C-alpha cells in the first residue's frame, strides 16, 4: 500500500496549517460538547429521576433524535443563522460559532439519552435512601449526577467523538473557509474532491488516532470507575 505509506509520511511531516486545522476541530467539538452537556446532563438526569406527564414521549423523541443526520442539523442551523433567517442579524453564519451551535444540537440528544441510561439504575438504588433523607430536588439531582460521573464522562466522550467525526453539519454552516472554519473532516472532504487521496487519507489517520485516544480514555475511565465503586 504505497498510498498508505505516503499518507503516514504526510502525517509525520505535519505543518502549521495542519496544526491549525486539528486545533480548530478540537476547539469547536470540545466547546460543543461542553455546551450540549450543560443542558443535556441535568435534563437527562431529570428524565431518569422524575415521573411526569409526557415523560415517555420526551424519552422517545430524544432517543429518536440520536439518529438525526448531521446534514439536517446543518440545514436547520443554516436557515436559522442565515441573513434571511430569524437570527441572521447576528452575522454568525460561516463562523466557528455557527459550527459549535450545529454540533451542540447534534450531540445534545446523545448526551441526554446516555446520561438518562446512566442515572436510571443508580436512581433505583438510591431512591429510598434519598427519600428518607428528605433531600431537595436539586440535591437529589446533584447527588445522582455526581455518583454517575464515570458513566456520564463516557456519554460526553461519545458525544465528543460524534462531533469530531461529523462533516455534514459543519460544512454547511461553516462553509469550509480556509484558515477560518476549515476543520479536519471538511479538509478530508475537500482533498478527496481535489483527487488528493493521500492527503485525505493522512488526515483520516489523524482523525482515527484521536478517536482511538478517546476510546482508550473511555475504557480507562470506565474500568477506573468500576474499580473505585468495588473498593468503596
Amino acid at each position, binding site marked *: 500500500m504505497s498510498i498508505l505509506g505516503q499518507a503516514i509520511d504526510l502525517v509525520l511531516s505535519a505543518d502549521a496549517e495542519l496544526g491549525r486545522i486539528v486545533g480548530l476541530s478540537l476547539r469547536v467539538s470540545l466547546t460543543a460538547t461542553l455546551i450540549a452537556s450543560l443542558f443535556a446532563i441535568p435534563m437527562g438526569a431529570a428524565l431518569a429521576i422524575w415521573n411526569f406527564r409526557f415523560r415517555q414521549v420526551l424519552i422517545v423523541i430524544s432517543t429518536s433524535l440520536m439518529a438525526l443526520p448531521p446534514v439536517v442539523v446543518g440545514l436547520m442551523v443554516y436557515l436559522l443563522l*442565515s441573513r434571511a433567517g430569524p437570527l441572521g442579524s447576528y452575522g454568525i453564519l460561516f463562523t466557528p460559532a455557527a459550527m459549535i451551535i450545529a454540533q451542540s444540537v447534534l450531540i445534545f440528544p446523545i448526551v441526554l439519552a446516555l446520561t438518562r441510561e446512566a442515572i436510571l439504575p443508580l436512581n433505583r438504588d438510591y431512591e429510598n435512601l434519598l427519600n428518607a433523607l428528605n433531600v431537595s430536588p436539586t440535591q437529589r439531582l446533584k447527588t445522582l449526577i455526581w455518583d454517575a460521573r464515570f458513566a456520564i464522562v463516557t456519554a460526553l466522550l461519545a458525544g465528543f467523538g460524534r462531533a469530531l467525526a461529523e462533516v455534514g453539519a459543519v460544512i454547511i454552516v461553516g462553509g469550509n473557509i480556509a484558515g*477560518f472554519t476549515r476543520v479536519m473532516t471538511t479538509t478530508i472532504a475537500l482533498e478527496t474532491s481535489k*483527487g488528493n487521496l493521500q492527503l485525505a487519507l493522512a488526515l483520516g489517520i489523524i482523525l482515527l488516532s484521536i478517536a482511538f485516544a478517546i476510546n482508550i480514555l473511555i475504557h480507562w475511565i470506565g474500568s477506573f470507575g468500576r474499580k473505585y465503586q468495588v473498593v468503596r
Partner: protein
Amino acid sequence: MRFITACCFLLFSTMTFAEDKFITIASTTSTQNSGLYDYLLPQFTKETGIDVRVVAVGTGQAIKIAKNGDADVLLVHHRSSEDAFVADGFGIDRRDVMYNDFVLVGPKDKANFENLEAALTTFSSSNDYTFVSRGDDSGTHKRERELWAAFNLSPQGDWYREIGAGMGAALNMSASIEAYTLSDRGTWLSFGNKGNLDIVAQGEDMLFNPYGIILVNPAKHPHVKIDMARQFSDWIISDRTQSIIGEFTLNGMQLFCPNANPEQNIDVICPSSVPKVD
C-alpha cells in the same frame, strides 16, 4: 459548573468577534480547487488588510447564499444566472474577471470522437458508454444541460448518472468506473486522481467558460460590506491583478485567462489548453 459556563462564553465570544475587517465571497469549487484563491487572496489581504473568506460551493448554491445576504461578493461562472441575479435586484456591477473552458473527459483509448456533438450523440444512443453528470445545479451542470439541449438530445437512461456532487466527486467516479464527464479546465488540470482519464473533446465555442464578479446589492441587504466588496472587485479587475491571474499556472499549464479589460482580444479557445511558454 460556573467555571465551565464562563469558559464556554469566553471561547464563544473570542471566536465570533476575532476579526472585523473581512468580506465573504460566495464562489465556485472550480476556483477554489484549482488553488487560485490560495495564490491570489493573500496578496489582496497583504495590500489592504482585508481578510477574504471564501465559501466555495456550486454556482447555484453560491447564488442562493448571496441572495440570502450571507455573502458580500459573488464570483461564479454561469452568465445567464448571473444576469438574472442582477436583473432581480440582488446584485450590482457585474464584471468579467477571467475565463477558461470546459473539457469533456473520459477514459483514454476507449473511443475517438470527431467533436463534442459526435461524442454526446454516441453516449445517448449507445449503452457502451457511461456519462457522469454533476446533477447539483452548479455552473458546470447548467452548462452540461445546455449542451444536451443544443444538440437536441435528452439524457435519460442507465448510462446517464446524476450524482448530485461536486466536480471532484464526479471526476473521482468517472476515473473509477471508466465514465465520461464534463469538467472545467481548472479543476481538471489541478485534479490529482486522473487515473485513466484524459480529455476527449475540447476547444469548441460552446465550451467557453467565463467567470464574473458581482457585488451583493446593499439596497437589498444593508448589512453587506459594500465598500470593502467594491475594493475587492476593483482590485481583481486591475491590470496588475489581471496579469497575476494570467500568470497562475499549475504544472506549467495556465489555468485562467484574464478578460476584465474589454480591449483585450479574447480567443474562444482558451490559451490554457496549451502549455504556457515564457
